């Protein structure tokens, strides 16, 4: 299975980086104020926002090649959480668009969102 590409430094993300953990809780509220809650999903879902700046052309090309190999949000890959090193074997990109801004030579920026799949 493919893995998310690393920068030349070996890093996956740069500051500021964002990680979210989400649950899906369904809540029914009754006329008397009581509630009934249940899990709509069996476990939490994780999401990482990866903003990258000051990329050189080689790094940017590798990220774009990875996006294309995944066919946008379609493909699945393993992602190592840069916070704790834990491997998430089934993840996808969240969007179908890869945007690269070329601000100057070796000064490109882009952003990708990785989402853990529920299978």
């Amino acid at each position: 299975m493919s893995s998310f590409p690393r920068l030349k430094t070996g890093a996956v993300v740069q500051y500021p980086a964002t990680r979210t953990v989400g649950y899906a809780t369904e809540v029914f509220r009754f006329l008397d104020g009581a509630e009934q809650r249940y899990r709509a999903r069996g476990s939490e879902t994780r999401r990482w926002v990866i903003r990258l700046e000051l990329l050189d052309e080689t790094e940017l090309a590798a990220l774009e090649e990875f996006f294309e190999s995944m066919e946008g949000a379609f493909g699945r890959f393993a992602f190592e959480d840069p916070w704790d090193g834990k491997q998430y074997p089934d993840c996808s990109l969240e969007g179908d668009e890869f945007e690269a801004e070329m601000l100057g030579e070796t000064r490109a920026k882009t952003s990708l969102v990785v989402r853990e799949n529920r299978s």
Partner: protein
Amino acid sequence: MAYFPQIAQFPGTRRVRRRTVGSEAMDGSIVKYADSGAGEIEWELSYAGLTDQEWGAIRELFEACEGRLETFTFVDPFANLLKSSEDLGAAVWLKDAGLGLAAGIADPLGGSGATRITNQGAEARAIWQELPAPASFRYAVSAYARCDAGARLTLFAEAGATKASKEFAIGPEWRRIVHSAQPGGTEEEVQFGVIVPGGAAVDVFGLQVEAQPGASAYKRSGAGGVYVNARFAEDVLTVNTDGPGLNSARVRIRTAG
């Protein structure tokens, strides 16, 4: 064939779009399908300080294409124009008979993407790729190369009868060689490649062609960077004249891809 003039500045934006059709269930699982025919690439080119002549070239193309109606050739100013830059055995690469290729050689970036090209004959032989790009543009042809025994390697850009080539001495250490070439003329096909001298075994990596005078960092390529069916993304082209002979504008170009 009409083509977008060789005018590019920073900043520029390139967007690659794909389409995934998905159905999400209540438990959060998703069934997905890739719609491979719906992909597209869009460039947003920002210009400042364009001369009247430079802006006129863009405007003339826009008028000739009647906005979004007709297509033109767009040479991506940010891309490695070659296809399959690390697979010299791919069908897009043409080569003279008697040239042997061995892939999987250690490359200068720490991978194994280099190729050993062995010329078993006495005469110089070439490996090249033909791109549907205008010969009037200036290109930077570059590669990393080394040869244990030392050799003189030639990079070239050839269009019709004109050939712009440059010879480089290479030794056992990796060296990045760059040839700034402008074949010239009105041809709309240009051949870019490497000539290996007779009897030499040369390791080559990172073959790259860019539509600019100098080489930037190597970009591994797959589909290349010349798009023959590009279109303007809008029917309106707006220019700001900031002073005499100073124009600024933003142009969006789109192609299937």
